[in-house]
Each structure stands twice: as C-alpha cells, then as structure tokens.
C-alpha cells in the first residue's frame, strides 16, 4: 500500500436514542464499533455492507458532518489525516479549524437529485467550493468551472442551466465536478452509482477511475454492490452491524472471502450467467438484527452457518488469514 493519507483508529460512534414525553436521552445505538482502517494516497478503499451496518456513518464521520447533523452523537477514536499541514486528528478539530481541510476532502452523494440545490445554476453549484476555499477572481473561477465541466463530460455552456434540466447520470457528473473543484486529495463517495441506470453506471465508474489516475485522488467508495466495489477498489473493507469484519485486497475479499458473512454476501450477488444461482450459495437465515439490540460477542453469530457456542461470548479479533486478508472469525 502507498503512503497513508487517512488513518481511522478505533473509531466508535454512538447515536443517541430519544424517548419519553420530554424526549430525553434513553439510550444509545452503537452504529460503529471500534473500526480501524487506512486509506493510502491515490488508493480506492471499498467499504461494503448491508443497510444499517454503519458504512455511511463512517463516511460522514470522516468528512466531519456527523456532529453538525446529529445532535448528541458520541464519537470516540481517532481519524488522522496526513495532509499538506502534517498529521492531524480530525476529531479534535472545531468546525472552524476543519474548514481549511475541507478543500482536501470532498464528498459525492448517492442521490443526484437531492444533493444539488435546485435554485442554483450548475455553474454556481460547481463554483461554490471555489468561492469558499480559493481566492480566485470571478474570471478565474469561471474559467475553472468551464474546465471542470468539460473534464467530467458536460458541455461548459450548460453552466447556466438548473439541475432539473439534467438526467441522473449528468447530475452525478455535476456532483463530481463540484467535489473536484478544490483539488481534493480524498473523495468520500457514498453509493455514487447506485441510483443510476445500468448503462450510465459504467460511464460514471470510468470517469471516477480516469479522474483518480489524472489527479492522484484517493477514494473511500461506500457501496452495497459488491461487483462494482470489486471492480473499482484496490482494497475492500466489509462491515456488519457496526463492526469491521474483513479487510483485504479486492481480489482476496471478493474471490476468496474468509469471514462467513462475507462468503454469504459474495455468494448472494447474482451473476449474469443463465441457468440459475450458484450451487455453493450460502443461504443466510433471517435478517440483519437491529443495531438497537445487537447480539453479544460476534454480531453475526445469530445468522452464521458455522456458529459455535463461544461465538456469543466475545467479539473475535481480526486475524490474518492464509489468503492474505484479515477477518474477524477464528473458525475459517
């Protein structure tokens, strides 16, 4: 792996649960539990898991928008960013201190419809980060916007149009241009292609890869579609109910998964091969438990096909596997 850009160390995030007539805090949901990983410069780390596993929460914590949007959220651990100003723990920064760093890390959102302000023209949307983070003149900014729009495959003369005049794929390109405007080092992409049509998905994935090669971007690519994540990622991290349960290179995790949950997840991905599913498909029983009453010990033991009695006792640590990755299961 290349030189680290972002170190997430023992990150735990607990959401408050409000209850009672006066809406006081009655409990907490541990959405993310002791998660550690590293993203190298120019690397793509895929973060996968089913809904409710905490992958979006991790992404939002990194980009420092969790505190602003969720009152009462408790975040522990460290998120160390190795930027142009040396290593800094993002969690120790105030919003004002975070601001200059935001030009180095940007986010692309899942829904290209709700993540663009319908009252701003596309030119204004792409220009907005420049107004905040650069001291360019209006002429320089306009030049930059034109260049950005061309670079992501839009026509620069469309800058005067409004978001509703564009299709989903084009809007996602606008979101990418906006993220790219301030020359970030890291882009956190939360399900960037899952709302797009199949024929457009490939265009956006190719664009993201081209931009990565051109600008040396690192991506945290959060998604649930394993075939897309396998395609775009260098390494893949798998989460289940707030815990990181497997981490390895894309091929290690996708082709030789070690954790029983990852095995089930990979084998559930439908393949474009006629004649039915895989004979080796692992059928999971039941559904992902609610994080409110998370199982003790290994969170997966309630659905695991190879669960042993002691799985409910203690959370297994991440162990190195023969195939090269680490996985939180001692029995594979």
């Amino acid at each position: 792996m290349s030189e680290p850009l972002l170190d997430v160390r023992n990150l735990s995030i607990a959401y408050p649960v409000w209850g009672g007539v006066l809406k006081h805090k009655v409990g907490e949901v541990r959405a993310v539990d002791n998660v550690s990983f590293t993203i190298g410069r120019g690397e793509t780390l895929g973060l996968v898991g089913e809904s409710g596993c905490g992958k979006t929460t991790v992404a939002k914590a990194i980009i420092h928008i969790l505190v602003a949007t969720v009152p009462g959220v408790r975040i522990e651990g460290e998120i160390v960013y190795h930027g142009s100003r040396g290593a800094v723990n993002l969690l120790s920064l105030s919003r004002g201190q975070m601001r200059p760093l935001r030009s180095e890390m940007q986010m692309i959102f899942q829904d290209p419809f709700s993540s663009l302000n319908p009252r701003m023209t596309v030119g204004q949307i792409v220009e907005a980060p420049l107004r905040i983070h650069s001291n360019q003149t209006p002429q320089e900014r306009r030049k930059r916007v034109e260049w950005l729009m061309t670079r992501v495959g839009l026509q620069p003369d469309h800058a005067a149009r409004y978001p509703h005049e564009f299709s989903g794929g084009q809007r996602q390109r606008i979101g990418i241009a906006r993220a790219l405007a301030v020359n970030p080092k890291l882009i956190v992409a939360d399900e960037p292609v899952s709302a797009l049509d199949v024929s457009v998905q490939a265009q956006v994935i190719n664009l993201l890869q081209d931009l990565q090669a051109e600008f040396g971007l690192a991506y945290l690519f959060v998604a649930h579609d394993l075939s897309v994540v396998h395609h775009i990622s260098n390494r893949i991290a798998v989460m289940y109910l707030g815990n990181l349960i497997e981490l390895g290179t894309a091929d290690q995790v996708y082709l030789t998964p070690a954790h029983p949950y990852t095995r089930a997840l990979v084998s559930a991905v439908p393949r474009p091969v006629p004649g039915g599913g895989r004979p080796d498909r692992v059928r999971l029983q039941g559904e992902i438990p609610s994080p409110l009453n998370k199982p003790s010990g290994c969170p997966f033991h309630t659905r695991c096909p190879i669960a042993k009695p002691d799985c409910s006792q203690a959370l297994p640590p991440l162990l190195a596997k023969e195939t090269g990755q680490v996985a939180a299961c001692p029995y594979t």
Partner: protein
Amino acid sequence: MPNKVQQAAANSGTATGPLLSVRDLRTYFRVDGGMAKAVDGVSFDVLPDEVLGIVGESGSGKSVTSLSIMRLIPDPPGRIAGGQLLYRGRDLLKLSYPEMRKVRGAEIAMIFQEPMSALNPVFTVGFQLIETVQTHDKINKRAAFDRAVEMLAQVGISDGAKRMRDYPHQFSGGMRQRVMIAMALSCNPHLLIADEPTTALDVTTQAQILELMLKLKAQRPGAAIILITHDLAVVAETCQRVIVMYGGRVQEQATVRDLFASPRHPYTQGLLKSLPSTQTGHERLHAIPGNVPSIMDMPPACKFCTRCEFVFDRCRVEEPPLHDLGGGHLVRCHLLEGEPGTSAPGGVATVVGAQGTTRGLTPPARPDASRQETTP
C-alpha cells in the same frame, strides 16, 4: 379452496397456449406540449409455468407495461390507446371496472418495488391480508384469518398469528416484501407481476426473496411470473425468457440462454458488456455513450439510434421491424436484415455473410453505409 378447483376445471379448456397475450399495447400520457408514448406497440406472450423477465432502464416503459396489464394507469393523464390484453382468451381491456376488480388479485396479482408505500401504514398487516382474501373469496373472517396465517408461514414469516397484529412499520424491508408476496398470492393468482421486487433490498435479502418467489411458483402448476427489473444478473438467475425494452418498444426477445450467449441488439450487447461482474480484471468498463433520451425527445425511428455505436443513416429515418431469428429470438435492428430466418428479407444483402459469424459479444457487422459518429 373449492372455488379455485372449480375455476381451474372451467378453465382447463384454455390452459394450453399463452396465459397472457399482450398484443400491440399502446399506453400514452398527455403531458405539457404533447403525448408521451410510454409504451408504443408492445407485444409478447406469457406462457404457463414460465418466469418472463422484462429488462429496461428508467423510461423504457417496463413499469407502464405492467401497470397497463393491471389496468392501473392513472387516467387522466394516462390512457391505453390501443392493443389487446388477452388473458386466457379474454381481452382485459374490454372488461368493465367491476369485472377488472375480480381479475386483480384473484387472477393477476402484482408486487411493487417499495413495499412500505404499497402497504397501508394505518392498518395492521393482518387486516390487510384478510381484506384481500375476503374481497375475492366468500369466506368468513375466521377462515380468512387462517388462510392469512398460512400464507405468512409459506413466505417464511414464523409466528404469523402474532405478527398479524403488527403494523407495516414494525417489519423490516425484506419482511414487508414477504408480506406483499403473501398478500399477492393469497388468492392463488395464475399470474404474478413483480415490478422490481428486490431493488430496495440488500443483496442477501434479495437472494432470499427471489428464491421464495420461485419456490412458491413451483408449488402452483400453470402459474407464471413476469419479473420486471433493471438487473440483468437477476434475470439470468431467475427467468426462462426475457424481453429487453428501450424507448417504449421491445428491442429484443429471447430465451435467457440465447440472450446471454448471443445478444443481437446493440443495446443488449452494450448492457451486458457494461456489467462489472463480466469483466475479468480492473480494466475500463464498456459504457454505452450518452443518456436515455427523455420520453418526449425519443427519436422517431430506431429509439436507440442516438447512442448506438453501429448507427447508420437508415436508423434515423426508418424504425426496424422485429426480425425473427428463429427459436423465439426477436431483434429490432436493421443490421439483422436478410439473416436466415428473418421475416423481412431483402434490403442490404451484403450483411448476410458477415452476420453468420456473429456470436457472443462480437458486434454485428455493419452494412457499408455512411457511418456517422454519435454525439455523446
């Protein structure tokens, strides 16, 4: 359920042949400044015991086709402007509203993409299941309750009698979709239309739901499923035949084996090549250029001509007919003209030789026509 037995006996004469025959279906929507032809001349058959996939992107007309079969198109602005929907020989479009209500649920049932918006949030699941059963079968509430619990057990919801008292929000996404399936199958319909039933679900839950649908179909001889999806991989694993729609028209129709082994329409080929899972390494994906045109800006001739890599002049002025390649493989593309077995021979004769060698994902040979680059 004696009424079902009688019905089956009464219908046994028409049991051979297609269960549903859609003939030249046209569904238009009045919009500002014109008529949006969401479905424009779509024909296909659904055979007993089969799972038919309809694949398309947003705006392809796949969902409007299914809503038209159920006659659930909001009118206005929508209107079924023409065609026939022959269900066991009866034209559904000629039925009165009360007659159609008897068909819905009892004969043809539908499940939707988002189960939360398809279930009523202010009534218990049990109330809604019993309501469905009692609408179609004259049985008392106790029997309807028992049938509902039995249906919940069939779709894998244990402790059904207790869960009948729960409201939809107390179920998870996958469980809600199971409730929808239980409701849809509670009157033993012969045709189930599933419109993106697993799109909102996680991948492990998707596998469970698809498996469940196939299992329940296998228990009902003669029943068929229309599975509407954008996911070709789901089609490959669950369907026997597949229809590819684009721009409100059928572009290709084939058995799943034929479609994946030798897709003939450039759009189908592009879709299959753009799937990440068919690529071996991490090289660039094949992408279809451009975007799906809005329904109001659909090109008049071939709907795919604005994005097709093999486009030539004729594609822009004349829409190709559906060429029959034999074995139930139909393709709407000018490039297949003069193929052995095509129904519309003549025209560009030079294609024939080259076409015979086209297999797999190799693009069809292009006739010697002035090629113009597509504008991305």
